[in-house]
Each structure stands twice: as C-alpha cells, then as structure tokens.
C-alpha cells in the first residue's frame, strides 16, 4: 500500500515556487511604485480623482506584497523534520570517587542503572540523570 507520507511534494518545487513568488513580488512592487508616483504627480493636477485611483492601486499592490510575504514565509524557510529529534544526554557519577561524566544517551540507559566502570578508580559509574541537552538561550 502506498503511504501518503511518501507522496508529499519534494523540496525542489518549493524552491522554484519561491523564485516565482520573488519575481511576482518584484513586478507588483515596480508597478505599485509607478502607480504611486503617478498618483502623487497628478494629485495637484486637473484630475484629483485619477490621483486617488493611482494611489489606491499602488497601496493595494504593496498590501498584496505584504500578504504574499507572510503567506510564503513558511514555504521558503527550510522544511522542519516531521517528527522532531532532540539531543539527550546521560549523566554518570562514580559512587566511589565522585567522578562525574556526561555523554550522549544510548538506548538501554535509565536513571539508577549501574553502567560502565569508572575511568579513575575501580568503582562502577551510576547513571544519575538523563535529560535533553540544554539549549543556548537566544540572544535578543
């Protein structure tokens, strides 16, 4: 049976979609600028209603660009993995010499498991903690 997860859109079309979006944004941006400029030019002229139309078109163009930017942001950013995988560490402590060591989690580890021999003395290291690797705080 073919699974739907395997039929998802590949990464490459999304990248090309982002280029198309960029071109569309640039074209709309140029026309909006022209429209706004024409609107301001004709504002003090004989036909102020025409200026209003130009300004409305220009503003609408920029509004559309803003909308497209927010809508396509998620597509253009790097695709996140479907199921997140986190780094988990295991803390080991020697009961004899208090040596403490931190290593990557291995399957089969659990808290209060007698694990590997101590590298400093004859004792056995005990797993005293398992937790996710602390994330660095984001700088503002």
């Amino acid at each position: 049976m073919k699974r739907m997860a395997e039929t998802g859109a590949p990464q490459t079309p999304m990248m090309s979609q982002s280029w198309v979006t960029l071109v569309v944004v640039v074209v709309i941006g140029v026309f909006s600028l022209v429209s706004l400029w024409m609107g301001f030019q004709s504002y003090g002229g004989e036909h102020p209603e025409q200026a209003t139309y130009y300004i409305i078109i220009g503003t609408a163009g920029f509004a559309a660009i803003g909308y497209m930017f927010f809508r396509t942001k998620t597509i253009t950013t790097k695709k996140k993995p479907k199921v997140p995988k986190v780094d988990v560490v295991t803390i080991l402590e020697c009961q004899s010499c208090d040596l403490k060591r931190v290593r990557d989690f291995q399957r089969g580890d659990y808290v209060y498991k007698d694990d590997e021999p101590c590298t400093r003395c004859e004792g056995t290291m005990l797993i005293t903690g398992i937790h996710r690797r602390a994330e660095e705080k984001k700088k503002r």
Partner: protein
Amino acid sequence: MFLQVGQLLQNQNDLGMILQTLFSLSFIIYLFYAQRIQAMTMLRQVEGTLRKVKEIRDEGRHISIETVKEFGKSENDPSTEVDRFLEHFLIPPVSLDPAGIIGKLGQLVNVRESTFEAEVRAMAPEASDSEVNNLENLLEASLALNVYYKVIRHFYLLGKKTMNIYIIMQIHMILPMIVREIEAYSSALQAFKNGMPIGDGVGALVAAKMMHGHEWKDVAKEMVAAEVPYNGRTLIVTKAKGPGGSVGKPGDAVENILNGRKGKKKVKAVIMVDAAGKLEGEPTGGVAEGIGAAIGGLGIEKYKIEEAVKAHGIPTYAVVIKQDISHVVAPMVVELYNACDTAVETIKRMIDEKTEEGDTVLVAGIGNTVGVAQ
C-alpha cells in the same frame, strides 16, 4: 519613462469607469460571498494542518512498526497488528446513573491495559518487560496521533462537503491547541522508542531520588515502595516500577500501604508529587505546593487515594512541578530535571514542618516512570 506610461492612461474617464466597475463588482461579490470566502480560507488552513498531522501520524506508525520489529525479533511483518492496534477504542460506561461509575471505568481500563499488554507481547514475543511497557506507550502515542488525524479529517471533509462555516469554525478555532498536543505526542515517539525519561516522569524521578539505595518491594500492580529513614521519621516512598514506561496503580498502592499498617504506627501525612500544567508566563520547572491529591488521568486512581485518606483521616499535601504541554511526553528538559532536586528539598521541608520525630509519612511520586528505575 513614467511620463510615457502615464500617457498610455490619459483617458481618465475610461480608466475611472473600469476601476469603478471593478470596485462595485468586488463589493457585490464580497456582499454575497464573504462568508464563503472566509470558509474557504479557514478550510485551506485546516487542510494545511491536516497534511502536517498526516505526516506525523504516518511517521508514528512507521516508528511503531520498526520498533516492534526491532524489539520483537520476529520475522513476521507486524504492520497488520499495528494498524489494528491504532484503531483500538474504549467505550466509556453510561453516565446517566453516575453511582458506581468509577468502578465500571476502572474495570474497563484494567481490561484495556491487559488487552494492550497481550497484543504487544504477541507482536513482540522476544521483548523484555521494560520493552513491552515502552512499546505499549509508543503504540498508545501513535494511536492518539491517529485519532487526532481522523477527527481533524472528519471536520475538514464535513466542512468541505457542506461548506457550513459553523462546522468549519468548530475545528478551526481549536486548531492551535490541537496542534500543540499533536506536536507533544510526536516528541513522545522518540522518548518511548528509546526509553528516555519524559516530562511527566518528574514525580517518579523525585520518588526515585528519595528511595534509591533502600530496599524496595512490590505494593500493587507495577508499583514499588521503600521505607526511608529521614530526620527521625520514617518515609514510605512509592512510585511506578521502572525503568519501563508505566504509571502503575498509585491508588491501589496508597490504599494497600495505608490498610497494611494495622498494628504499626499510623501514617501521619500523605505527600504526593506530580507534574502539573503551567499557565503561559509561568516558568518551566517551577515547584509549587498545595493541598489535595496531585494526580491526573481519568480520576480512578485519584478517587481511590481520596477514599483511602478519608477513611484513615490523613491529610494530603501536594507538590507539583510545572511544565508546558509540549514537555509532558517529550524527553525531559534540563529545567525539569533540575526542578526534581528542588522538589525533593520542598518535600523534606514540608515533612519537617508538618510532622514530628517518630512519625511515618507516605510520599507518592506520580507519573510515567519510563527511563527511571528505583
């Protein structure tokens, strides 16, 4: 150049007429189709979420099948059995006459647990007891993801079929909360597959920290207890039996311990420690203390504990470690791990304040003990 472009549109009357028509047309369209446009926008958002949930659900199923194969060392493909498991359901008892409903619910849950265990053992005959428990938890997480997916799909298809904005709004309004829960369950897959301690296991970890190094014995199904001397008092510390993923039967454990003290000194206080949901703005790993039975779930175990302490006239105190829903079934974050030491100190202070030398205190660590022994 701009002047040349401007000259193209010299005939302002024509342009004005076109724009006026466009505006009028869009106004009329919006007047009649505003709700439909809104419904379509919401449906698109639901559809996007549905795709994402489907990917997570499929990944959960895939991980479950691979893990069953790995633990079970069976040559048969367990896909059919896993798919059957993912469609499992429980019919709650009738609540029109609520008297005795806890007993009925308890019996249903017991049957469900034994059925799940038997199914997992059949799927993975070579798996150890801990691995069976972890597999059960993993399959239950996948089952939950499957239910979420099917419910969202139901509302999406029903909304699309009827284009009824009120049907679509029902799912659209709660979508952000549902997505958070789904993301939490997706994190659980890694934890249960590898047997890592999870956020919900803080209660069990606190109890393990207090009882480690002391002789323990079984006191109820998948529950252990140890007598620990502390400051002239005797602490009876109980938790689910680890390191396999299990919450045990804390209600039965508390009941058995309290009832089994005939001829011995009466328990002076019960202190329960568990994970609790935090409100936005509260820090992860905050420790708070209060009164009452700190235990979640369907309410069966809470009922048993409340009945037992009432029968013996014992005060119940609670210590909770606060966490976000995204942390509950995900591998334990460092803030929660550090909070366990704070919780141990809090419990010791409470014992010092509320009891006297020679007293006996029951400390119950509640939560899933995956990745935590005793």
